[in-house]
């Protein structure tokens, strides 16, 4: 119920609240008005009926003292027929011995029948639309009789009902009108909010779009200020994004530089051997054994160079053209980190359980894994171990990279875990941020876990056959 109420938009909620408040106020006001009306009517009735009864008592007192049935009846009958603002249904004169002397309705109260004195106070019976009151007549301190009266108050009750009907109708209409007006006013007031919501909703991958000035021209001052702040925020975000992209590009160039350096090193090592082999061939080419050793040495050297060149080609070919990931595409990455690994004498434990090509963007996967491996090598102490594992299970590709470093700082871990994470402020962490973006493009998720004995595991789960997410990203 509460959850459903929270889901109702403000443009409905506020008019509803206004209507409920108006109705509540109307009910409270109506209750007060009716109470006041009732009190006024009672006071009015008490005054008029008391006045009427005083007049009757004054006129009838001598006839009661004379026990004059006819004269008493005549006065009571005329008073009952008078039809003033207070209409007695009946008036009855009662003697101190509780016998009826005369009544304006003799059939109801026959002469001589027993009828007790009643309380003189006005009592109202709304159900039967009657009021009762009495006036005790005294002469020189001696009670000579009582005039008891019943007054028809149908008119007053009808007026009360009419007032209630009017209050219900007026309050109902007022509540509906205010609810309608409230709805329109709130709709009008909340229109900028709807536009803001629409623009914020269009934000993708943490890149919000500014709200055009033409749209905010007619907005209230508060919403214009909000829109200005929002636009400034989008500009800052766009600038930071551009800067991050630039930094990422620079990082990429730096990586390429490192790779090129590593590759030159990897080429240079066999190159020395091969040059030596060539010199041997020149001098001892006639010697079959020397010739065979030199040729084998040259062949190994060329094979090593070929592997290095091929892995670089595979890594930096256009990622959008890669349609699948071969098991060998992952294995090639060992060559790309070989330089970094060997530089720091790091042992790489490599487990690639992929048996056949799988339907994922191979280039993107390679870049993500390469980034993580390079970071792992950088984080792991000299002579440490970096572990890689990959396997396809069900519809997902599972991979893990573990290092023995001091642990991934929380902001860095957040880059991987948080959707639409903002790029880091400096160049530090750009590799991870780029990897996270690629991972989200692949529809994958990353889980970062720090181990108690040191080191960090990053587990990646990438859906197979989800490359269509590229279009949506």
């Amino acid at each position, binding site marked *: 119920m509460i959850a459903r109420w929270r889901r109702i938009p403000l443009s409905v909620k506020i008019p509803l609240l206004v209507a409920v408040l108006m109705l509540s106020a109307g009910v409270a006001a109506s209750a007060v008005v009716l109470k006041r009306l009732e009190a006024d009517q009672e006071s009015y009735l008490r005054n008029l009926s008391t006045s009427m009864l005083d007049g009757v008592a004054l006129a009838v007192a001598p006839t009661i003292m004379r*026990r004059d*049935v*006819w004269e008493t*009846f005549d006065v009571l009958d005329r008073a009952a027929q008078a039809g003033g603002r207070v209409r007695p249904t009946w008036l009855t004169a009662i003697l101190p011995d509780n*016998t009826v002397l*005369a009544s304006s309705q003799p059939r109801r109260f*026959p*002469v*001589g029948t027993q009828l007790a004195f009643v309380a003189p106070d006005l009592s109202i019976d709304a159900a039967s639309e009657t009021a009762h009151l009495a006036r005790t007549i005294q002469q020189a301190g001696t009670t000579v009789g009582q005039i008891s009266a019943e007054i028809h108050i149908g008119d007053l009750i009808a007026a009360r009902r009419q007032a209630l009907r009017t209050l219900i109708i007026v309050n109902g209409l007022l509540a509906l009108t205010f609810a309608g007006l409230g709805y329109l006013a709130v709709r009008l007031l909340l229109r900028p909010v709807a536009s803001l919501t629409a623009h914020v909703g269009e934000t993708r991958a943490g890149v919000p779009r500014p709200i055009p000035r033409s749209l905010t021209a007619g907005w209230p001052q508060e919403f214009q200020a909000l829109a200005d702040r929002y636009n400034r925020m989008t500009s800052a975000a766009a600038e930071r994004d551009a800067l991050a992209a630039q930094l990422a590009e620079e990082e990429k160039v730096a990586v390429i530089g490192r790779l090129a350096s590593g590759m030159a090193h990897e080429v240079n090592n066999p190159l020395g051997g091969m040059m030596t082999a060539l010199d041997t061939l020149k001098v001892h080419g006639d010697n079959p054994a020397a010739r065979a050793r030199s040729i084998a040495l040259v062949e190994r050297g060329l094979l090593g160079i070929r592997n290095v060149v091929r892995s670089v080609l595979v890594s930096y070919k256009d990622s959008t053209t890669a349609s699948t990931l071969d098991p060998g595409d992952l294995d090639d990455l060992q060559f790309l980190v070989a330089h970094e690994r060997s530089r720091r004498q790091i042992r790489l434990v490599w487990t690639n359980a992929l048996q056949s090509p799988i339907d994922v963007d191979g280039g993107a996967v390679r870049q993500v894994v390469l980034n993580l491996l390079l970071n792992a090598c950088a984080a792991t102490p000299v002579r440490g171990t970096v572990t890689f594992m990959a396997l396809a299970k069900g519809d997902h590709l599972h991979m893990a990279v573990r290092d023995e470093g001091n642990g991934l700082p929380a902001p860095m871990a957040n880059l991987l875990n948080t959707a639409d994470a903002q790029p880091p402020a400096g160049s530090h962490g750009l590799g991870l941020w780029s990897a996270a973006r690629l991972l989200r493009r692949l529809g994958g998720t990353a889980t970062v876990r720090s181990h108690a004995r040191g080191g960090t595991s990053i587990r990646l789960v990438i859906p197979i056959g989800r490359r269509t997410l590229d279009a949506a990203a």
Partner: protein
Amino acid sequence: MPRDGRSTGFSVIRLDRRLAVIGGVLSFAGLAVGRARAQSSDPVRIGITPVVIDSDVAFLDRFATYFSGRLGRPVIIEQRRTYQEITALLLSGQIEAAWICGYPYVQHRDRLKLVAVPVYRGEPLYQSYVIVAADNPAQSLGGLRNQIHAFSDPDSNSGFLVTRWLLHQIHESPRSFFSSYFFTYGHRNVVRAVAADLAQSGSVDGYVWDILQQIEPPLTDATRILHRSQKLGFPPIACLAARAEEPAIVQLKSLLLEMDREESGRELLANLHLDRFADEPEDLFAGIATLYDAVRSDA
């Protein structure tokens, strides 16, 4: 209430006797005063009791104007609530004539003289009715036992004496027969009391009830005539016997007897639903006298 009502009813007769004595004493003084007035332009005072139907101010004003113009003297209509008060005024000489009931006339016939008697539906007679509410199941006077009864006036023939005489015939009195009774001092009031069920039965002037049936049918429709009396002398206009020859009274008598001979007189008579006024002998009221003599022995 009932006890008081009874005591009132019977004290009336004793009071009447006292009034008769007082009236007798006063009549000598009144006679002298009256004669002196007869020579002046002092107003002629005529007493009216509720024997007449239409006692509203406009009619009484027309009534006074009619006689005033013809008498050449102002005429003042004196109204009182009870017959007794008018009778006292008449006997004391404070008024020249009065329209009284046959009962007080009979009670004081030795000192009163008839001026004129109304003729109603061709004869100077009327009846007394005992009425009940329209839904009262009683079929005879016996059915009214232990009920509440409304009388008109203790000095009224039709509104008291006749019913009292009827009860006398069955050896009952109002006190013993009815659970209680009261006086309304007006025949129309008796009809109202019975119609409203204030009393289950009432004694009323038949002439009044008949006229009410014509001019106020909703009132009489709520009642039913249970008993009609024999015809008795219509309430007369009477004066003190000692003043009967005064010019004003002689002239008044002449005007009354000749009212039906002129248009304005006939209009007044029509208002009263009467044919005319007639000069009738005293024995017209012998029937009432018989009733009076019968019940007087009860007192």
